[in-house]
């Protein structure tokens, strides 16, 4: 049985449908990336899951308990981290975590053990006596994550946790989340940084204008969004700089567009991205994409285009997101 089951969830504010009939589920030990543009309904959904808001329709069950009918039973099972860290500036890290441990009714030695283990896990032990106001964004975010872990929840709901973090802090957060999933916790995470999500998420849900456009394991969503027509994406980089590179890029683009299998070509900096697609009705044979790539490379070399790298490009969540969404906001 799934730890979290969301069925037909809707939240309307008058005529505005912030969340419109969305359904998905989440197993223990998995990380679900909640993807969508601003105003898509991610935070509203997360607030409902965290018992902070009530749905207009639909049901949300966490370990079989309804977040609407039994919020008090659900809260001990979840840890919610909003997009604002919510720390008290005039408390030290240790005081802050100790305060929340008390609020979670942890007592005596058990409380101390739990606070120590959370600080250890989040790498906060050396900062125990530092005021939270003096911490960097990344460290504040660790403190906030530590707070959500104090009562050992089974589901973590993290709203834009990587927002505003520097690359190192993001990588460290990614590792922490992977470790939490390895401990068996289910993690629901929203983020705008799709490359981040694609590296840690097992499943994803893409939402726009309150509607769920795609959901499931990441590779399945990628397959589905890639479409039914057999195709491959390639990326080539050219050598050179200035006007010479400009000319070479234009030449490569023109040559590639003349080839029958090339569907789409786009130039980004010194790279050219292209989509190679079989014609409708043509059955793909094993190795057709490699053959096509070799043929295209030959054409470019023969035309004296300075190719320095030519490789297939893996589809990622960014592609899926751009394919599925239409950039609409409400």
């Amino acid at each position, binding site marked *: 049985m799934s730890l979290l089951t969301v069925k037909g969830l809707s939240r309307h504010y008058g005529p505005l449908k912030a969340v419109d009939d969305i359904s998905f589920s989440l197993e223990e030990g998995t990380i679900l990336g909640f993807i969508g543009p601003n105003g898509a309904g991610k935070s509203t959904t997360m607030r409902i899951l965290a018992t902070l*808001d009530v749905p207009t329709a639909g049901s949300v069950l966490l370990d079989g308990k309804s977040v609407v009918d039994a919020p008090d039973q659900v809260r001990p099972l979840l840890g919610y981290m909003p997009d604002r860290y919510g720390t*008290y500036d005039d408390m030290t890290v240790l*005081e802050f975590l100790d*305060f929340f441990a008390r609020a979670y009714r942890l007592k005596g030695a058990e409380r101390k053990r739990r606070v120590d283990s959370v600080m250890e896990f989040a790498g906060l032990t050396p900062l125990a006596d530092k005021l939270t106001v003096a911490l960097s964004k990344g460290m504040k975010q660790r403190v906030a994550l530590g707070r959500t872990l104090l009562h050992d929840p089974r589901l973590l709901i993290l709203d834009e946790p990587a927002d505003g973090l520097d690359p190192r802090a993001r990588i460290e957060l990614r590792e922490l989340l992977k470790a939490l999933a390895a401990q068996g916790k289910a993690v629901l995470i929203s983020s705008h940084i799709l490359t981040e999500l694609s590296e840690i998420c097992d499943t994803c849900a893409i939402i726009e204008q309150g509607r769920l456009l795609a959901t499931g394991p990441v590779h399945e969503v990628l397959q589905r969004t890639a479409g039914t027509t057999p195709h491959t994406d390639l990326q080539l980089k050219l050598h050179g700089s200035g006007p010479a590179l400009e000319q070479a890029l234009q030449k490569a683009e023109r040559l590639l567009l003349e080839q029958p299998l090339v569907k789409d070509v786009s130039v980004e900096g010194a790279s050219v991205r292209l989509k190679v697609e079989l014609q409708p009705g043509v059955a793909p044979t094993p190795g057709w994409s490699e053959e096509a790539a070799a043929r295209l490379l030959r054409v470019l070399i023969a035309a004296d285009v300075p190719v320095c790298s030519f490789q297939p490009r893996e589809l990622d969540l960014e592609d899926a997101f751009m394919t599925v969404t239409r950039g609409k906001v409400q």
Partner: protein
Amino acid sequence: MSAAALSERLAEAAGPIVVKEVRQGLRARVFAIFFGLLLIGCLVVALIAAAEFDRRLNAELGPDYFRIFLGGLGIVEFFVIPYSAFRAMTREREDETWVLLVLTGLGPRRIVRGKVASALAQGLLYASACAPFVLFSYYLNGIDLPTVLVALMLSAAWSCLWVCVGVAAATQAESRIGRALVHFLVLGCLLAATVGGIAFAAFFSEEGGRLLREQASFRAFCAGLILWALSTAWVASEGAASGLALLSENSAKGPRVALTVQVLFALVAGAFVAWLADGGDAIGAVVGEVCGCIYLSVAGVFAISEHDGFPPAFAREPGWSKPGALRSFILLVGLLALGTAGCLLLAHLMGSHELKYQRVLLAAPMFVVLYLSLGVLLGRLTPLKVLTEPVSTRFGVLVALVLGTLVPMLLSLMVHGRANDRDLNLLSPLLGLSAINNGDRGALTLRLVGACALFFGFLAWTVLAARDTERRT
């Protein structure tokens, strides 16, 4: 038991919010400054008093110095501590840390209790610093211990009331502009409460002892004031918890229960006083009801500006406890009716059959219903509704009161050359009640006010009922 173990036990018993708030409060600069100033001030005044007492051995210096000590303590207890409590809750709202607290399972009511308890604990610290000096004033002659004790009890109740009001006010505004307005309002109220409290303390230190000994009515007044302050503090703290409640929690139940209990208690207390007084003038019932109506109109502004409808999760709750402005409006009208019936009965028991008293007793709640209903209509049907709830209705009541006061006065000024013409000010919330006492036409005036209250009350009920059905989400 070691000191660490004892403090740990105390902390466990007090609860996490109290521990946190006291810790933060004691660490704050404002505590160090005011605690230091209070202590130094009291010490200097005590030295001066000792020197003066040395010179004039039989002089009764007690009341004068008691007034000074109580004044100093009053500034801290009536202003600094309630304002600190207000700021603490405001910060919790602004930083949205209250959401995290609610998720721990503490619940809004426990959060509010924690905030209030920690403010009172800080108040106790200040009071304990000042206590030896207050006691010292007893040895300066001229003031007895019961007076000191009653004054301290009154101060404690007054401080508790304003702490709760401060905490409640901090939970009311959502927007930045709203918060700024509330901030100014709270500052104004606390200044007024401090000045009023210190002025009363000054009067009390001078006359309190004598009045307490000689007049039963003054003793009843002091007891009533303490009970009113404490029960209103309870209502305000329930209001604060309601302001912090999530949509998944019933925000209406607590304040409604508190308000109902308070009104019932006031009626019982009124009956008890009437029984003690064994008859007497019914003016007490009239004053009590007018004060009660003013109080209920303030409470009513918050009650009727609740959101319309209720989330489906509350469909199974009994009708009276379901959230929604409609039910609060009905409860308020019910409480006003109950209060009026009680006061009429009290006036009758006190042996008063005077028509003028009965008219005032009947008219006062009608004015409340009339202006609250106008507020509902203005806030929910006119362009004011763009402000959304609860601001629109609160603003609606304000507009109704201002227009209801100013327009008749201006008309009166233009027609008769004076602003207080009774005929034109019949429906004025400021001057209307005095017109009811206007001999011959009093009955007619009462009927007019009653008809207006009934008509607009019915309209407001219709509007609220329609919106309640429409917005049950």
